């Protein structure tokens, strides 16, 4: 067994006591800056063995993509002693405003609550470096933010030395106050203007070693927690932009249809509250005094529709196309006595919609446009809005608003571009909101995919492991696509976006086992769907297929699933997280018939995760009644261990792992879209079954592994893949049948399908009969 322990996982990012250059900016108050590409070293050529993501992964691509741009980030010390920073990333719940405030607080010796982190609007000069995705935010911004903060602290110390008649070496800074040897002190508030630099100048700074950290690595609550629990946290739909009245769109009955004509425009215009009715390419937009009146108007519209992009298609016809597109397995020569194990797994369409629906505010005038939306790729949005409304890019302002969840959904600017088009056509500002029913039926989905695996085994050793992953095309024509080439990706090559998708696949997929000859290939076909990079992109499906196969290989060789994995895992960090969940989760404890444990591992984002779950598949649990809800097997316990390198905020990391487990449960057991006759059937959260309280684990434990690394890893997506895999493995062990179609309940349609015309359901009126 080759162990990679000899290769320090983060040796390439040895930042200890490195000196960096940043800038003191000229101005009236202290402002500092650093280049956003600092601290991200270049890498050697990509080797063929070990697998690519072990040495150069998607995060490295993102980091490298930013390298040539001179992109400054600025920290300002305000005269009230606080620090302000505009983060060129988007907060969608993953906690980066909190962790960024912690990083700044650490270097500045300022309390976390005195650091104000807001989201930067689209900054075209940042080019590729304003994308939130790939769990890469902290990895790519950690060093530049520290450099800027450290320069600010040095400037404050310099000014304080003059104020206090001392020298810097004798001063101490703590919680925004600098104290001299005599006990006299001066606050950052007093120093903000005195420390200001009259001119912009380059200065060097040495960063503190992690042994001196007092904030980084300590559990901190979210900086926006109070706003969230009091209802004061502001989302796009809460913005009060003058004149931006509620606006919704009557959408076509089949996927990606378009309006041909409106039969009753005048009648709908005369409805209470309605101000405008206009056709756009995606449907017929209505603007009214309230969203309630928009809903009524959308339902009243009579529209003649052009056909959609997948007329007549269903799950079965798309699946047949995928099977036809599968790249053949080609086992290399193996000894005659070797056993061959083969399986094919199918993963149905899933919706990546957040709870906050697609929405945007747009105010498009003759000579300029302003848009507010939750956007993880605002520079792309700015470009596409400009093109859509025929304005120069510099005349389009794109404001980034905190998002109510993303899960990959907000990498796209669908609502922002649509709102801009509607505002232009109506000639007034609009506050556009998608109805919930619009999201699964017309919104972004995770593509249907198959994963075929063939492995060969001889004398307890795995000789080969081949995987062919075949997917409906994943749309990277937005943010991650921006990394390689925003325009190139959009070229009609006639080959789909195979080349690009394969790049992403190759940069993210890593089989963590020594299984002899390993090949993992992706093929994509069928570009007619609105797809996207749902949280963790390919990994939940690929890992689920792999880990089920690993359990089968363990069974075939007569070994325990944990022992088998430990014997074949390559990386000590992955082994450590597996050992941890096995110990904490009491792997191997006896369980009643119909219940079982399952375990799985995953390695991505410069880290490792392992998940152990216990599942209850007994009839009394599976059939427990919940009105309009899917019950099914219940994950009663989940234990997740994560090694994410240097952890900024363990409390935030634990939250991300918890979300990853909830996603994994839904992906394995309950959440999918059904395609029939050219449209998706789901139109409600009681149709699309994301995990609910009655599906949530009764016992959840997260272990954040200690790490001596100087390098943060990714967190936002790291919990999903191992979770879905562990649930699938547990289900297989509890029922004695390995599931091959996900989610396992897909064949059972658990709801009454809502009508497609009108496209959205009526608002109920019986709410007072359902109080508690």
């Amino acid at each position, binding site marked *: 067994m080759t162990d990679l322990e000899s290769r320090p996982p983060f040796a390439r990012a040895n930042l200890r006591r490195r000196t960096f250059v940043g800038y003191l900016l000229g101005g009236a108050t202290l402002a500092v800056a650093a280049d956003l590409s600092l601290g991200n070293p270049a890498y050697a050529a990509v080797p063929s063995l070990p697998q690519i993501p072990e040495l150069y992964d998607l995060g490295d691509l993102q980091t490298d993509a930013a390298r040539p741009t001179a992109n400054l980030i600025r920290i300002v010390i305000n005269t009230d002693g606080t620090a302000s920073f505009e983060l060129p990333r988007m907060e969608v719940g993953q906690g980066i405003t909190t962790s960024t405030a912690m990083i700044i607080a650490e270097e500045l010796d300022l309390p976390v609550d005195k650091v104000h982190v807001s989201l930067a609007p689209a900054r075209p000069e940042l080019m590729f470096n304003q994308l939130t995705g790939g769990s890469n935010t902290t990895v790519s911004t950690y060093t530049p933010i520290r450099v800027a903060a450290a320069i600010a602290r040095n400037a404050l110390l310099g000014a304080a030395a003059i104020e206090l008649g001392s020298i810097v070496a004798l001063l101490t800074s703590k919680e925004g106050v600098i104290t001299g040897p005599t006990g006299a002190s001066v606050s950052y508030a007093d120093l903000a203007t005195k420390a200001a630099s009259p001119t912009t100048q380059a200065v060097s700074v040495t960063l503190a070693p992690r042994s001196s950290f007092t904030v980084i690595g300590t559990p901190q609550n979210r900086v926006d927690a109070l706003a969230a629990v009091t*209802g004061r946290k502001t989302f796009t*739909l809460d913005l009060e932009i003058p004149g931006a009245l509620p606006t919704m769109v009557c959408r076509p009955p089949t996927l990606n249809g378009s309006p041909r004509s409106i039969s009753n425009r005048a009648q709908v215009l005369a409805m209470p509250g309605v101000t405008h009715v206009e056709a756009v390419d995606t449907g017929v937009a209505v603007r009214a005094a309230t969203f309630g009146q928009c809903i009524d108007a959308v339902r009243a519209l009579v529209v003649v529709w052009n056909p959609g992009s997948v007329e007549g298609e269903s799950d079965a016809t798309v699946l047949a196309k995928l099977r036809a597109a599968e790249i053949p397995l080609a086992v290399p020569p193996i000894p005659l006595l070797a056993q061959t194990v083969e399986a094919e797994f199918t993963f149905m369409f899933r919706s990546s919609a957040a*709870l906050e629906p697609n929405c945007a505010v747009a105010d498009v005038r003759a000579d300029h446009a302003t848009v507010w939306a939750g956007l993880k790729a605002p520079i792309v949005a700015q470009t596409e809005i400009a093109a859509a409304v025929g304005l120069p890019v510099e005349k389009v302002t794109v404001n980034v608003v*905190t998002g109510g*969840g993303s899960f990959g959904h907000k990498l796209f600017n669908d609502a922002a571009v649509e709102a801009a088009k509607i505002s232009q056509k109506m000639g007034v500002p609009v506050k556009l909101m998608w109805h919930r029913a619009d999201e699964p039926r017309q919104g972004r989905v995770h593509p249907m995919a198959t994963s075929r695996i063939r492995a060969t085994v001889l004398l307890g050793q795995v000789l080969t492991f081949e995987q062919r992953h075949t997917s409906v095309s994943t749309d990277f024509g937005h943010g991650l696509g921006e990394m390689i080439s925003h325009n190139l990706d959009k070229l009609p090559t006639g080959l789909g976006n195979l080349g690009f998708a394969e790049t992403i696949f190759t940069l993210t997929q890593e089989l963590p086992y020594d299984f002899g000859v390993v090949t993992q290939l992706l093929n994509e076909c069928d570009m007619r769907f609105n797809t996207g990079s749902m949280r963790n992109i390919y990994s939940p499906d690929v890992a689920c297929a792999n880990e089920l196969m690993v359990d089968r290989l363990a069974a075939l060789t007569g070994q325990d699933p944990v022992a088998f994995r430990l014997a074949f895992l390559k990386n000590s960090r992955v082994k450590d997280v597996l050992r941890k969940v096995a110990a904490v989760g009491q792997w191997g404890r006896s369980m009643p018939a119909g219940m079982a444990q399952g375990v799985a591992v995953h390695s991505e984002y410069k880290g490792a995760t392992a998940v152990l779950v216990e599942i209850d598949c007994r009839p009394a649990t599976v059939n427990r009644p919940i009105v309009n809800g899917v019950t099914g097997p219940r994950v009663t316990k989940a234990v997740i261990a994560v090694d994410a390198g240097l952890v900024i905020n363990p409390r935030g990391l634990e939250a991300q792992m918890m*979300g990853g487990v909830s996603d994994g449960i839904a992906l394995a057991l309950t959440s999918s879209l059904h395609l029939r006759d050219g449209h998706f059937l789901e139109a409600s959260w009681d149709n699309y079954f994301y995990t609910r309280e009655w599906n949530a684990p009764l016992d959840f434990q997260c272990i954040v592994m200690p790490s001596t690394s100087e390098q943060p890893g990714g967190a936002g997506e790291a919990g999903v893949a191992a979770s879905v895999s562990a649930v699938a493995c547990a289900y297989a062990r509890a029922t004695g049948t390995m599931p091959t179609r996900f989610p396992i309940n897909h064949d059972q349609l658990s709801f009454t399908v809502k009508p497609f015309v009108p496209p959205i359901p009526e608002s109920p009126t019986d709410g007072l009969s359902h109080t508690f």
Partner: protein
Amino acid sequence: MGQHTFILNGSTVTVNVDDDVRLLWVLRDVLGITGPKYGCGINVCKACTSHINGKAFNPCSVQVKDIGPTDQVTTIEGLPATVGAELHPMQEAWLENDVAQCGYCQPGQIMAAVAKVNQVHAAGRELTDADLDEIRNICRCGTYSRIRTAIRAGAEAM
């Protein structure tokens, strides 16, 4: 256009709006009360959960004409005042457990949690897992485990 009067977060309000407009839009679009969120509009996601006369309800599914002048509507904005404090114990428990992720569902979650605990306490019972399983509010960030922990802690303090 009808005139409708009710008590919102302790103060009497009167709005001019058509009878059939659902209360959620009266709150959000007419009165500017944005704590209750839209997540579905059909009483499924529960993001708009508020209280009417102390009980949980979903204003997306109630016409404004069905709210009377003596009806007390409480949104997340008015929850602390019901206990005469800066924050309700359930909000404190939420902060203590750092429950929120994106935060979009959280006002509705907290309002549902308070009503659920009141319901259980009124029945003279202790909160059980079965009670928590009855809460239908969607959290798409999946922070269900912390929600359960926080509700138990909040119930202790209520």
